[in-house]
């Protein structure tokens, strides 16, 4: 009798729980430590720009404006005039237009599969020592300039949240895609080493 009662006492709330709010119950925090950041805090912090560009801020810029920003912000000092001849990585290909992209230099605004990656890196990582100080317009402009000097877009094309993710990069689909990672599996299926 006693054990049966105990069973009922335990079972009923469990059943109720699973009927009424199983989702809420399963997803409620276990430890309740920490706080929920506001949407605004997240927006300010979230500088990851995915291939769809959904995280891009409002703003716009073209190659012409970008050339000015490139000069004003001192990009020339490290990357050289028009991306050639500096100590920092080269930013304009010296190869002819007919050379396939994989035979050209490893240049971000040339080889990147998405133009959003160029925007993301300028925004988070440049200029050296003053990272994070460029405005969205300046980043759009610089991105346009670097894509233009690599013959990816025309000089007058305006880049913004809508147009940037749509830029057709020269690499097209000719690059390796990440495999489906599997736990406790060889790093490459069929590769013994």
């Amino acid at each position, binding site marked *: 009798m006693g054990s049966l009662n105990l069973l009922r006492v335990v079972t009923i709330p469990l059943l109720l729980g699973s009927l009424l709010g199983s989702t809420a119950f399963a997803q409620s925090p276990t430890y309740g430590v920490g706080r929920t950041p506001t949407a605004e805090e997240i927006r300010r912090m979230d500088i990851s720009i995915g*291939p769809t560009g959904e995280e891009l801020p409002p703003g716009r810029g073209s190659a012409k404006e970008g050339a000015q920003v490139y000069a004003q912000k001192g990009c020339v000092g490290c990357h050289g005039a028009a991306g050639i001849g500096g100590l920092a990585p080269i930013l304009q290909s010296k190869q002819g237009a007919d050379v396939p992209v994989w035979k050209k230099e490893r240049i971000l605004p040339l080889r990147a599969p*998405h133009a959003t990656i160029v925007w993301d890196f300028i925004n988070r990582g440049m200029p050296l020592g003053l990272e994070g100080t460029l405005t969205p317009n300046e980043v759009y402009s610089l991105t346009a300039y670097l894509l233009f000097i690599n013959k990816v877009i025309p000089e007058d094309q305006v880049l913004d949240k809508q147009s940037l993710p749509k830029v057709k990069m020269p690499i097209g689909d000719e690059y390796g895609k990440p495999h489906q990672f599997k736990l406790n*599996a060889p*790093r490459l299926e069929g590769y*013994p*080493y």
Partner: protein
Amino acid sequence: MDSKRNSRRELLKAGAALAGGITLGTGGKAQAQHDHPMTPGSENASPMIHGSKEQIEYGQRSKYVTSVRVQHPIGGRPSPDVFGKVFHVATPLQDSVGVITPSSLHYIATTRGSFLPDIDPKQHTLTIHGLVDRPLTLTMDELKRFPSVTRLHFIECAGNRHNGKQKTVQDTHGMTSCSEWTGVLLSTLLKECGLKGSAKWFVAEGAEEVKGASSIPIEKAMDDCIIAYGQNGEPLRPQQGFPVRIMVPGFEGIYHTKFLRRIKLVDRFYMNYNEFGHLRPEDKELALGEQIGPKSVITYPSGTQRLPGPGFYEISGLAWSGGGAVKTVEVSTDGGKKWNRAEFKNTPQRMAHVRFAYPWKWDGTETAILSRCTDEIGQRQAMREEIANWWKVPFERDYRVPGLDNSVMPWKIARDGSVTNGLA
């Protein structure tokens, strides 16, 4: 009571002798000031280290231990550079014993050469957001309130490639290190946030000036990633990401984001600048830029060391794999003709260095010593020729192994006992 008084008297006497020694300042002769004869052989053969406040409070190694990190690769970009930035620095494996790399000798690598951020842990937070039910911001104190794990793991840089031009094992293999890491499993935090089913990848981002970020599959996050605040019994060192970094056991070093400030759950692969560096034409080669294969190297005897003469030596080295625990290590002392099972000096653990050894009697003839390993999921470390054969490319002297180079490393031993790079 008597014995106490006696010992006190002894102490006073010793003090007087010491004081006398200091005043006289004649080193060995000062010991003759004792008012009783010393037992022969009890004299201190070495000078004494005078205790300083600093040494008492925070220990230092002996001045006779001088092993240091060096820039990697030799002749490459210096660290620090003229601006004080750090690029790649290798750990002195030739002097290592056991499996723990002292935190002060752990290899260092940064994305493009970085200043170390001087982060006040009281000001630092970690935010998890994106495809979760409840975004979460944690202070470092709050992070430490979660259930923790402590695990041994190696980290190895993708630049850890051996070639014939290098001299020491520090040059060839020094971009790997192993520590005991303490922190909270990422899966614990993601469950706390309510991970959405649509989350397939996550981006881990650091707080250094370039905000270095890497994309990692969600399966890995829910398995063994650690949000680590402790290394070898103390807080992380700034060079290792103080106050918090992510451990992605078995993945290339670059994934182990330091100064971790943000984790974003996303529904697809986000190619960050770090992943741009991994970009390859083919899926197959790209896949080898993630998890590290089985790898081992002999650290003693190794390049530039010298065996004093024929006789007994314990060949010793390290083995590790990104696929799990090391299962076996074999050592060859005849250039790879015969392979002998090595013994483990500690229990192999998942994605951790294991110390192996093989007892050897060197007969004084010229030879080459090599090691190779297998891991618990059946991957095995191969010779460079075998790897080239698998990829169906002609094997040449400067053949570049795809992915992180995990090929066998030979050391040549000359008749005079000198040890040199077997790839040279």
